[in-house]
């Protein structure tokens, strides 16, 4: 799909508005859009929202052999991807100029500034070092990709924890997350990019351009700085001529912005650490405001009940004798339930056994349809066991298996598992019988 072209009247209007110091969304010249930083459940996963621009960064690590000329330094690899969902102009698999520019800029900003201590990533000099890989995905393009990408990358690096390594003589053991707590990377400082866009040959300047402002700009100046007022990288594109005092003014603005953004990142990291420590729920799903999504709420919908009685009678007359009642389920191991001991297989024929299995599957399916069909939750005699590992499901065990249809069962796995166990027991008994 092609991107929408910019019409003449939009361009004229934007330039005129900028001359009057007005921006499309009502910001001032030096204002950033609202930045939201949230972290995922894994260590090293970070989402950044800069207005409507949305970027996700994920950090991962693996052990590899180091470079020959630097045997005791770890490696860092950056990769930015422009997803086609971000803008109709981005196509899958096509290396565009913008992509190359962004990649190069992120590398320069984070690698050349030596913000990460690569020597601490060494495990065995010359043989094994950690390679840290930062993948940045663009999810929505509304201007100023570089700033958002740098914020996401550095926040994800600060959030990331690598597995602990123990060295005893010649032996190297990499401990998994359960054995020993993973340790964070050692980061010296946090470089953050700030973008300035220029209009009318450098006369007008805007900080944090949105997508439409980017289309009409003459040139872009990008300064990467940390909160100690050290410039990590500075780049000017578009071929505009800038005066010395303009650049100095931009760097002063950048230092103010960078210290604010660093504050924000630190606060977000703190909040996430607190949430993880207290055992509360954390991760991306939690940061979505609960009020807006009403997926679990539906109104009562009328159901055609006009001829249910007749249908029911018909089915009753045609129905076969159901299997005998089974006693209440027994928990053999967490996550599985067993219903009954398993009856003696009285059929004796292989095909019959398969039919029986199919019937049982059907009844299980019916049960599941039943659960989905009803929204009323009459608990009755039910015991709710919430597994602390699984965040989503609650395992509900029924005391009375004679299910009145009002009980909402969500232990589909338990029912199926119990049925399967029953079948297996039947098979075993049959084999023993034979």
């Amino acid at each position, binding site marked *: 799909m092609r991107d929408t072209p*910019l019409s003449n*009247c939009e361009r004229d209007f934007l330039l005129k508005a900028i001359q009057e110091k007005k921006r499309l969304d009502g910001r001032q010249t030096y204002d950033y859009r609202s930045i939201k930083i949230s972290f995922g459940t894994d260590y090293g996963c970070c989402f950044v929202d800069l207005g409507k621009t949305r970027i996700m960064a994920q950090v991962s690590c693996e052990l590899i052999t180091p470079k020959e000329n630097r045997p005791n330094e770890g490696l860092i690899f950056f990769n930015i991807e422009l997803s086609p969902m971000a803008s109709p102009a981005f196509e899958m698999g096509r290396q565009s100029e913008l992509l190359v520019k962004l990649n190069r800029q992120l590398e320069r900003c984070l690698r050349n500034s030596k913000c990460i201590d690569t020597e601490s990533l060494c495990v065995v000099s010359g043989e094994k070092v950690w390679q840290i890989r930062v993948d940045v995905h663009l999810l929505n393009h509304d201007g100023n990709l570089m700033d958002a990408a740098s914020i996401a990358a550095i926040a994800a690096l600060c959030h990331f924890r690598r597995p602990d390594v123990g060295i005893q003589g010649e032996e190297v053991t990499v401990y998994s997350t359960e054995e020993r707590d993973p340790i964070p990377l050692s980061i010296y400082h946090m470089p953050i990019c700030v973008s300035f866009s220029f209009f009318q040959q450098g006369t007008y300047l805007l900080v944090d351009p949105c997508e439409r402002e980017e289309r009409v700009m003459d040139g872009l100046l990008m300064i990467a700085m940390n909160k100690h007022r050290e410039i990590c990288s500075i780049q000017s594109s578009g071929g505009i001529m800038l005066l010395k005092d303009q650049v100095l003014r931009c760097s002063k603005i950048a230092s103010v912005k960078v210290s604010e953004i660093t504050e924000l990142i630190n606060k977000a990291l703190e909040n996430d650490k607190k949430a993880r420590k207290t055992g509360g729920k954390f991760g991306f799903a939690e940061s979505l405001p609960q009020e807006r999504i009403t997926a679990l709420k539906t109104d009562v919908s009328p159901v055609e009940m006009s001829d249910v009685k007749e249908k029911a009678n018909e089915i009753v007359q045609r129905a076969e004798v159901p299997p005998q009642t089974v006693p209440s389920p027994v928990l053999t191991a967490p996550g599985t339930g067993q219903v009954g001991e398993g009856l003696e297989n009285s059929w004796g024929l292989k095909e019959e056994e398969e039919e029986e299995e199919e019937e049982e599957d059907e*009844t299980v399916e019916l049960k599941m349809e039943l659960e989905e069909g009803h929204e009323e939750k009459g608990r009755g005699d039910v015991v709710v066991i919430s597994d602390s590992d699984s965040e989503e499901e609650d395992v509900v065990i029924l005391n009375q298996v004679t299910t009145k249809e009002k009980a909402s069962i969500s232990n589909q796995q338990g029912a199926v598992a119990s049925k399967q166990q029953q079948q297996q027991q039947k098979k075993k008994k049959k084999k023993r019988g034979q």
Partner: protein
Amino acid sequence: MVCLFDCVILSCFYVIIHLVYKVGDVLLPGDVFSFQMPESITDSKPEKVVCGPGLRRNGDEVLVCKSGILRHKQPNLYWIDSQQRRYVPGKGESVIGIITSKSGDIFKVDVGGSEQASLSYLAFEGATKRNRPNVQVGDLVYSQFIIANKDMEPELVCIDSCGRANGMGVFGAGGLLFKVSLGLVRRLLAPQSEIAKDLEKMFPFEIVVGMNGRVWVKSKTIQQTLIVANLLESCENMTAQQRQTLFRRVADGSI
């Protein structure tokens, strides 16, 4: 006996339940459409029902193919009102297009669909082979589709069937073009549009609304134009009350 009852209830609901829908219900794609006859129609002869956008006939049944709210218009028209931002060209619709290139006798126009539409230079009022219209690349045109289906390239014209412009043609100097969802555009263009009425009370402005979700606004000052544009973009998901409160607040605090 309890177990028998068990079995019965389970098998009962094995059959697909036909939910009776009321106008105003939220429906999802795949729902089989069956509705309650309004009491006004009491004759027992088979009713012809017109299915609007979002409903499709599949053999004997009518299926819902878009998610949205069921709407009804007397006497027998039903359709699904859904939110969408991506425009699909439809014949007879008036849209705002952006000229992207000139080649030979036709202009290529971007209307926000999957393909660019073509607009002949003779399709303007008073245009002849000698007297070409003054259209540049990047201009905005308000035009109508004469051909718009999935098998052919869409075609636009800037004149109506009598050969008069009737409001169509090149426009747009000095205003701002922005994009909104198709639902909001339809609400703006409805004959008794409340949003348009509320906006009129604010301050005078010119507005052109295209069915492809593009809206062009121009007012006396840039500030006012920006205000109108932002208001329209924000009243997408608001109820009527929230919208009126917002408009009142802006009118009180505005220049």
